[in-house]
C-alpha cells in the first residue's frame, strides 16, 4: 500500500500471537498443567504460565463427551483446542502461548457456550517465531476452523431457544433472543455463504427472497412476525409491508421455526465434517467480506428492517472479521516492515471501530435500536468502517502475496 503512510507509534505487533496445533516435537514444554473436565466445570490447575510451550493434561471425569478451548483475550478467537474427549479419557494438548490474557473453558457435549471459563495469564517475554510460513498457515487454518465450529456450536442452542419461544407464541421472549441468536451466525457468515442455498434459507431478507422467487424462510421471516409492521409501513424497497405478506399462523410458525433449526443443524454437520477446511484466502477474504457486509447492509439499516437490531449484527460481523484477521495476522506480521505496518494499521482501526460501537451498547447488554441512530452517527460509523476496510483490503496480499518460506 504505497500511497498510505500511517504513523505507527509503539504498537507491539506480536502481543497476542498464540500458536497451537502443529507444534514441533523438538520444543519442550516449559509448563505442565492439568485440566479436570466435568459436566458443569473446567478446572485448570493453575491460572498462569510463562510464555512458551504450555502443556495441558486433560481428563474428562464427566458423563459425556467434552472439549477444551483456549481463547484469546477477545473470548472468541481460539488459540488451542482439544475436541472429543470422552468420559474417563486422559489426553494432552500443547499450546505455544505469547504473553497476554487468555481464557480457558470446556464445552460439554460440544455444544453451547463454554463452561467454567477462567482467565489464564501468560507472563514473560515474547517468544521468537521460528516457524515457517507453511507452519504459520497450518496453525491459522486449524485455529480458524476451530473458531467456526465453536460459533456453530453456540448457534444451535441459541436458535433452539429463539424458535421455541417463537413457535409457542411467546413473542416477548422471542424478541429478546433474536439479536443474540444471530450473533453466532453473523460472525461466520462468509463460511455459511459457501454452502450454496444454506445462507438464503437462513438469512435472506424478504426483498431478496421475493426478487429471486425463493420461498422466504429464516431469521428475517421470523423477525417480521415478531416486529409486525404498523399500518402503512413499507419494506426496505418501498413496497407495502403487507404485499404478499401476512402474519404467520401457529402452524406456519412451527414450520418456519423447525426449518431454521434444521438449517443451522445442517450447517453444523457441514463444518463438523472431518474433511471440512478453509484456505488462508478464505480466512482473509472472509474478514474483508464481513466488513463489506457491514458497509453494504448494516450501515444502511436494511438488514434488520423490522427489529432495528442492526448494530448487534454490525458488531458480530466486525468480531468475525477481527478473529479472522487475528488468525492470519502472524503471517502478515512476518513479512517485514510492510507487514508489521499493515498489521499495526488494521489493529488501530479495529480498536477505533470497537470503541465507537461501544458507545451504542454491547452484544451482552444490547445495542441502541438502529432507527434511533442519527444520520450523523451513521456517517461516523460508516467513516470508521471505511477507515478499517481500506487497510484490511490489503490483508490477502500481505498473507498470500509473498513466496512461502
Amino acid at each position, binding site marked *: 500500500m*504505497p*500511497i*498510505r503512510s500511517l504513523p505507527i507509534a509503539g504498537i507491539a505487533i506480536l502481543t497476542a500471537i498464540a500458536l497451537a496445533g502443529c507444534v514441533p516435537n523438538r520444543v519442550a514444554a516449559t509448563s505442565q498443567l492439568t485440566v479436570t473436565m466435568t459436566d458443569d466445570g473446567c478446572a485448570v490447575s493453575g491460572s498462569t504460565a510463562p510464555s512458551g510451550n504450555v502443556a495441558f493434561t486433560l481428563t474428562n471425569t464427566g458423563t459425556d463427551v467434552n472439549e477444551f478451548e483456549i481463547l484469546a483475550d477477545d473470548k472468541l478467537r481460539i488459540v488451542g483446542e482439544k475436541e472429543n474427549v470422552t468420559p474417563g479419557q486422559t489426553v494432552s494438548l500443547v499450546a505455544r502461548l505469547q504473553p497476554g490474557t487468555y481464557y480457558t473453558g470446556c464445552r460439554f457435549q460440544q455444544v453451547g457456550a463454554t463452561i467454567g471459563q477462567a482467565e489464564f495469564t501468560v507472563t514473560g517475554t515474547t517468544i521468537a517465531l521460528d516457524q515457517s510460513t507453511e507452519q504459520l498457515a497450518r496453525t491459522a487454518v486449524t485455529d480458524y476452523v476451530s473458531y467456526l465450529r465453536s460459533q456453530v456450536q453456540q448457534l444451535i442452542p441459541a436458535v433452539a431457544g429463539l424458535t421455541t419461544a417463537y413457535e409457542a407464541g411467546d413473542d416477548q421472549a422471542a424478541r429478546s433472543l433474536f439479536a443474540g441468536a444471530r450473533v453466532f451466525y453473523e460472525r461466520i457468515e462468509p463460511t455459511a455463504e459457501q454452502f450454496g442455498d444454506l445462507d438464503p434459507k437462513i438469512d435472506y431478507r424478504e426483498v431478496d427472497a421475493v426478487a429471486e422467487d425463493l420461498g422466504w424462510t429464516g431469521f428475517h421471516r421470523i423477525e417480521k412476525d415478531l416486529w409486525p409492521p404498523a399500518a402503512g409501513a413499507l419494506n426496505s424497497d418501498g413496497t407495502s409491508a403487507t404485499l404478499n405478506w401476512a402474519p404467520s399462523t401457529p402452524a406456519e410458525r412451527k414450520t418456519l421455526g423447525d426449518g431454521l433449526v434444521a438449517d443451522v443443524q445442517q450447517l453444523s454437520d457441514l463444518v463438523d465434517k472431518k474433511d471440512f477446511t478453509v484456505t488462508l484466502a478464505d480466512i482473509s477474504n472472509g474478514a474483508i467480506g464481513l466488513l463489506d457486509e457491514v458497509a453494504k447492509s448494516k450501515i444502511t439499516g436494511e438488514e434488520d428492517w423490522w427489529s432495528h437490531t442492526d448494530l448487534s449484527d454490525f458488531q458480530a460481523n466486525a468480531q468475525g472479521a477481527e478473529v479472522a484477521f487475528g488468525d492470519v495476522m502472524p503471517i502478515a506480521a512476518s513479512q517485514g516492515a510492510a507487514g508489521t505496518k499493515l498489521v499495526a494499521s488494521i489493529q488501530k482501526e479495529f480498536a*477505533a471501530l470497537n470503541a465507537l460501537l461501544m458507545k451504542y451498547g454491547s452484544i451482552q447488554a444490547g445495542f441502541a435500536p438502529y432507527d434511533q441512530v442519527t444520520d450523523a452517527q451513521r456517517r461516523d460509523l460508516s*467513516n470508521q468502517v471505511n477507515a478499517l476496510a481500506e487497510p484490511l483490503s490489503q490483508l490477502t496480499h500481505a498473507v*498470500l502475496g509473498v513466496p512461502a518460506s
Partner: protein
Amino acid sequence: MSDPEHDRSLSRRSLLGLAGAGAAGLALGGGAGVAATTAALAGSTPDPGTRYAFYGAHQAGIVTPAQDRLHFAAFDMSVAATRTELISLLADWTAAAARMTQGLEVGDGSVDGDLLAPPDDTGEARGLPPSGLTITFGFGPTLFTDASGADRFGLASRTPPLLAPLPRFAGDALVPASSGGDLCIQACSDDPQVAVHAIRNLSRIAFGRAALRWSQLGFGRTSSTSTSQATARNLFGFKDGTANIKVEQGSAVDADVWVPASDGPAWLAGGSYLVARKIRMVIENWDRTRLGEQQRVIGRDKGEGAPLSGGTEFTEPDFQAKAADGTAKIDEAAHVRLAHPDFNKGVRLLRRGYNFADGNDQLGRLDAGLFFISFQRSPEQFIAIQRSLARDAMNEYISHVGSAIFAVPPGARAGQTIGESLFA
C-alpha cells in the same frame, strides 16, 4: 511542464480570465466567462492533451483557464486524527495529485498490481488524456479551531486572521451538511470523468484520516464545441461573465487574488482565499418571467448580452443612462449594477464557478443553479460584494444553500508538500 514559455502563456490567459471575472453577474457564472474568454483566445475547443504543471509558486486551478468541468469536495478530519496524520495526508494527496494532473495513475496504477490486492488506482481515467486537470487544496477555519473551540492539530496560533466563517447574508438558506469543511479539493478538468476520478481517489487515500463532508459536480459551457466567440450562458439563459475588459494589467492578479507576504500570515504568502457558495436557482419561476423583467433583473439584454444602457456585449454599462420616462436604463436593483466594481469600491474577485443540476427535488423541480467559486486576496472582497447584493432583484429567483471558505496555501515545489509552510 515547467517550461517558462508555457508558464508565460498561462499568466497571459489568467489576466484575461480575471478580466472576464470582473464583469457583471457576481453571483452567477464568473467561471463561465473565463472559459469563454479563453476559448475565444484559443479559437478552438479544449485540447484534451492540455497538461498543467502541478508544482509552482501558486497552486494551479486558480488563474488556470477555467476548464469545462468541476468536482469540488469538502472533507472533515477524522475524530481521532492527529497532526502527524494530517501532515501525512497532505503528503499523500500531494503525491497523488502530482501524478494525476500529469495524466498518470495513482501509485502502482489500476491494472499492473498484485492480483491479491486492490489496485492503487481506481482505473476509470485509464487511457484518458490529462484533459487539463488541476487539483487545488484549501484549509477551512475548522481545521485550525473546530466548532467546539478545540485546537486539534496545534494550528490555532497559525490561523489567518481573516479566515472565519462567512457572516450571514440576506437570503441565506444554508444547509449545514453542504457547508463548511476542514479541507477542500477543487478538481477541474475538461473531462468530467477525469475530475471525478481525482476526487474519488483522493477520498480513498483519505479514509481513516479524513472523510467526505460534501461534494459538488459542476459543468461550465453547455458544450465543449461551442464557437470561439460565444460567451457562455448560465442556467438563467443569460450570457454571464461578459467581458469587463478594463483589467488587463498583470498587477491585477497580484493585487486582488494572491495574498502578499505583507498581509500575513507568512505561511499563506502566495496563496489565496477560496469562497464557495451553492446557489440554487428557482428555475421554474424564472422561466415563466416575462423577457422584459428577466432583462431588468440582470441589467443586460438576453440575446446579445449588451448592457441595457446600450451598445454591444462588450460595451461598458452606463449606470447613469436614463430612459425617456426618467428611470434608469439599468435598474437600481439590477444585478449587473450591484455587482459592478464601480459600486463596490473597485473590489474584484476571480470567479471560477460552474453550473450544476443535481437531479430534482422532492417537489419535482430541477435542483439546479450555480456553484459559485471565487478566489480573492481577502475574504472581505467577497463579503463586501455579497452585502451589496442584498437588494439584488435576482434574489427573488435564487437562494444560497451552501457556503464555505478556505485558505488556499501557496504552491509547492517538486519534493514539497502542499501546505508544508503551515507546519514549518
